[in-house]
Every structure is written in structure tokens, then in C-alpha cells.
């Protein structure tokens, strides 16, 4: 029993690269065999490839056809069709606990016997399996922390942007670009299973729509909401707003067609350069969502809300007093005389004090409208063509629309 056990150098060399990642392992195998090497995932998407001369680097696979199995090994012969060539190779499945994690291929030259490569291929596949399994485990671990990270990001709990960049790298998210928060929500949400499923569908639709426009989804589900963080590409700063609008419309339309009886709404915050300010964008998106629902705006942008932004959080008593002082007389006149002059005034404000547009919208003759407006001017004791009066009336009507009164 004095016989020493020989471990081939090749095995030793391959083992030494296992800790250095998939590309290094692929390169090592390629150098040792002087043959092109390719590693794919279970769906034949390329994970790593290497070629001795560097000329045969496979970028996309069009089709893979299994040929015969090599005797007493799990390795098989394959025909791989790429954009510019057809290659014959030997492949071995990369498995871990009966789960196929991917495939390892080598491409011997035409005159070389493929059988001799099978044992080495099997050994290399087991090394790759360790790598892929570790990656899979890491991804599962990352998923656990994804929601916690996004929660902290959206509630401003991470105060250092470097920390956010670092965390973002874990999921391949680049927070160096300016970001915008979008919130999609379902009104009348209950904690019942069907509603939760609806939110899952909403998340799925959003992620698919994002992938369609080649954006890596940064999304989070939170009760009746799905929050999306959208990056603004430097070259698209002018188009960014239009892109967001199209994207939001697309998602809302898809949801409407899927669940016609439910109401979905959205809100869009401002774009912030630094990811530490993203929580502001999120809060703004929620304000826009709520005000959009009240004011009946389909795709509300926080930046577009105007004076409502100040009014919605102003002291209620003060708003009431203001409304009373501005339009109180008219409301009283309407009540005592059973007329709807307030409605006429609201119509005028909605149509930006344009007589023609208002008379058309309210189905009134121009002279009737003129008469009513004169009456309103008498009751309120002011001139409707004065800009300051117009401003005051518009603000008072906005207060009413915000359901503050």
C-alpha cells in the first residue's frame, strides 16, 4: 500500500480557479484544453465563454440540437447554431441535487475524438455547479434583503449615498443616475386574497412593461401599492417626462382591461439627482396619487399640482374662512333663491374664464351666461375681469374641489 495517489495537474489547476469566479474558470479550462469553452444557464442563455485564440467568442445562440450521448457519461454531443456559424461540440449538464443549473460545452476540432474529453468535462461541470449553486444561494439571500433595502431607501433611512450605491450594486441597480418614484395603487383595497393577487398582477405587469423598455425593474410591493423607481438616462432628460407618462398610461390601460370593475390610480414624484432624496420623490408621488384621485387627473405629476400643493395641507379653519369670505355670499344666494350660480362660476373657472368655451360646456346661450355672470358680480360685489379677483375665485373653487369644504 505504498502507492502514492496521483492528482493530475490539470485538476489541481482547475480547482485553484474555482474561487475566482465563472469567467476565470472558463478561461482556465479553455487554456488547458486549447479549445473554445461555453457555459450556459438551463435555458441556454450564455453565462461565460472563452476561446484560445479569442476569435470564436459566441455571443448569441440561435438553436441547440442534442445529438447522441457519449457512452457511460452524462455528456452529450450537441450541434449549436449561432448567428454566423454552426458548431459541433460536447456538452455536459451542470447539476446540483438533481437540479440542472446549466450546461458546459467544449468544441473539439473535427479530427479529435470527442469521447476522451467526457471525464474532464464531467469534472469541470461539477466545479461549475459549485459556482452556480453559490450564485443561486446568494441571489436567494439577496432577495430576502431587497425589500428591506427598498423600504429603507424609500423612507430615507439610509443617509449616505455611497451606502446606497454599494447596496444597489448587490442587485445591479445603478443609483448614480437621477431617479423618479412612481406609485401605482388600487383604491378600495382589502386584505383579502383576491386583492392581494391583483397587486401581484399589478407588479407583474409593471415589471414586464419595464423590461419591454429595457429598464431593470426596481419595484416594491407595499399593501395596496406598487412602487417603481425609474432612472433618468442622461441623454433622455427632455424625454423623461413623456416616457413616464407613456409608461404609466400603458400600465393603467392594461390593468383597466384586466380588471374593468376596479379602480387603479398612479402618482409621480419629482426627479432627484441624489438617491438619498428618493424618499421625497416617493412621498410626493403619494401626494400626487391622492390629489389626482380627488381632482380626477389620470396621470398626476407632483410638479403639475400647482396651488393645490399648498392648499391641501393648509389649516382647514383658515381655508373655510377664506372660502366663506370669497364665495360665501354666492352660496347663500343659491340656497335662498334655489338657483345654481355657483355651478356657472365653477364652469367659468374650469374653462379659464373664457365666455365662449363656458357657454358651450354648460349648454348656455352666451347672453344667458353674460346675465348670470353679471348677477354673480352683483352678489359678490366684485368685477370678474380683474385678475386678482379671478385668482381669488380660482383658489376658493380649488379648495372646494379638494373637498376641504
Amino acid at each position, binding site marked *: 500500500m505504498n502507492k502514492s495517489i496521483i492528482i493530475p495537474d490539470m485538476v489541481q489547476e482547475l480547482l485553484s480557479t474555482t474561487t475566482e469566479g465563472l469567467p476565470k474558470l472558463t478561461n482556465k479550462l479553455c487554456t488547458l484544453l486549447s479549445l473554445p469553452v461555453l457555459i450556459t444557464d438551463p435555458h441556454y442563455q450564455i453565462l461565460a465563454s472563452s476561446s484560445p485564440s479569442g476569435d470564436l467568442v459566441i455571443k448569441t445562440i440561435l438553436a441547440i440540437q442534442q445529438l447522441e450521448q457519449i457512452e457511460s457519461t452524462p455528456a452529450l454531443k450537441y450541434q449549436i447554431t449561432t448567428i454566423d456559424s454552426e458548431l459541433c461540440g460536447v456538452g455536459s449538464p451542470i447539476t446540483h441535487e438533481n437540479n440542472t443549473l446549466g450546461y458546459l460545452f467544449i468544441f473539439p476540432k473535427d479530427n479529435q475524438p470527442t469521447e476522451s474529453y467526457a471525464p474532464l468535462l464531467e469534472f469541470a461541470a461539477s466545479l461549475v455547479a459549485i459556482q452556480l449553486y453559490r450564485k443561486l444561494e446568494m441571489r436567494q439571500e439577496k432577495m430576502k434583503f431587497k*425589500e*428591506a433595502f427598498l*423600504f*429603507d431607501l424609500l*423612507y*430615507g*433611512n439610509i*443617509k449616505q449615498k455611497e451606502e446606497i450605491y454599494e447596496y444597489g450594486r448587490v442587485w445591479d441597480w445603478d443609483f448614480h443616475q437621477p431617479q423618479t418614484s412612481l406609485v401605482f395603487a388600487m383604491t378600495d383595497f382589502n*386584505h383579502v386574497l383576491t386583492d392581494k393577487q391583483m397587486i401581484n398582477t399589478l407588479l407583474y405587469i409593471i415589471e414586464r412593461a419595464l423590461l419591454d423598455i429595457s429598464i431593470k425593474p426596481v419595484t416594491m410591493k*407595499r*399593501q395596496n401599492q406598487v412602487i417603481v423607481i425609474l432612472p433618468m438616462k442622461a441623454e433622455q432628460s427632455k424625454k423623461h417626462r413623456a416616457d413616464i407618462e407613456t409608461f404609466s398610461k400603458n400600465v393603467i390601460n392594461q390593468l383597466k382591461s384586466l380588471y374593468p370593475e376596479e379602480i387603479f390610480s398612479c402618482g409621480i414624484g419629482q426627479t432627484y439627482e441624489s438617491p*438619498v*432624496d428618493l*424618499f*421625497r420623490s416617493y*412621498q*410626493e408621488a*403619494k*401626494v400626487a396619487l*391622492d*390629489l389626482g384621485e*380627488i381632482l380626477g387627473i389620470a396621470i398626476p405629476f407632483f410638479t403639475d399640482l400647482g396651488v393645490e400643493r399648498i392648499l*391641501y*395641507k393648509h389649516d*382647514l379653519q383658515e381655508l373655510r374662512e377664506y372660502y366663506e369670505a370669497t364665495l360665501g355670499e354666492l352660496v347663500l344666494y343659491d340656497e335662498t333663491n334655489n338657483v345654481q350660480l355657483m355651478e356657472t362660476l365653477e364652469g367659468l373657472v374650469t374653462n379659464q374664464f373664457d365666455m365662449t368655451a363656458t357657454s358651450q360646456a354648460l349648454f348656455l346661450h352666451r347672453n344667458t351666461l353674460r346675465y348670470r355672470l353679471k348677477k354673480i358680480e352683483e352678489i359678490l360685489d366684485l368685477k370678474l375681469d380683474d385678475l386678482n379677483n379671478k385668482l381669488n375665485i380660482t383658489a376658493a373653487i380649488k379648495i372646494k374641489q379638494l*373637498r*376641504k369644504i
Partner: protein
Amino acid sequence: MFKQLGYSFNADDCIGCKACEIACKNENQTPAHVRWRKVTKTSGDFFLSVSCNHCDNPECFRVCPERAFTKRQDGIVEIDENRCTGCQLCVTACPYSAPQFDPETQKMSKCQMCYPRQDAGLPPACVEACTTGALNHVDLNKFSDLEATRTLPGFPNIKITSPSIVFYPVKPRKRYFIK
């Protein structure tokens, strides 16, 4: 998973004894003029005990230029006094007047739902002190009660902020002897 801790308040049970207010002061040793929890009588002839509602959409949070507010994963909104400059923007933003300005320290402070107590498995001091059991703390992510309402008359507008508080309104009294 994430929680959204909040309060539940039964307006019928509150007798306005202010035990919650005193317990809060005692636990957090706040100065005399700083009231994290306030008991008030509403025009509807019942009492309201209100503190910071640890809103789902905290407005204090959005307006703070120093990013001094944080929301813990259990839903508690905290203020980092080291970051606070005492600009009082949060006071105007909060509909419930939860952030309180301390003129001595020139900083804001507010209810933190006794998180050191909660972390130790104890209820917040106000909840523990409530003599009639009107005030309770609940996880709103799991809470569901058909009798509970989101607001009461006399409580500030809940739109936008979505406060983490639920109410049990006053029920009409039954009269057994007077017909």
C-alpha cells in the same frame, strides 16, 4: 415581514383622565411645555387622545430639509435630534401637531411610540397607563375590524398622510328606564 404599528382608540371608553399624557411625560421625561400626547375634548362631546400617528405617508418626513426623520421597519417614525436644526417646517406640515418644539434645546421632538419598551416586549407607556383600555396599539398590516373607522369628527383630515390610527366611534347610548 414589515409591520405598521399604530394606535386604536375607543372614543366611547375614554373618560379624559389624561393618564396616557402623564405616563408619556413620565416615561420620556419631556419638558413641561412639550406634549407628545394630548387629550382634548371635541365638539362632539367626547375625548380624543392624539400623539404622533406614525403615518404611512408622513408629511413631516417629506418637508424636512435635514432628512432628520426615519421610518423603522415596524412603522414607527423617529426623529434624529442630532440632525434637527429646529426649523419647524415639520410643525406646519403635520396635521396632528405631533412634532413639538423645545425652545430650550431649539430642536424638535415627538412620540416614538416607546420603541425601547416595545423592543423589550412591553406596550407603549400611554397604552399601559390607559385606565379604561380605550387606547391600544395594533399592527395595522394585520388589523381588520368592521366596527373600526379611519377617522372621527374633530380629528384632522386624514387624506394624504394616512395616519396609523383606527377609531371606535361613540355608540348611541341605550336608555333603559326613560321611554
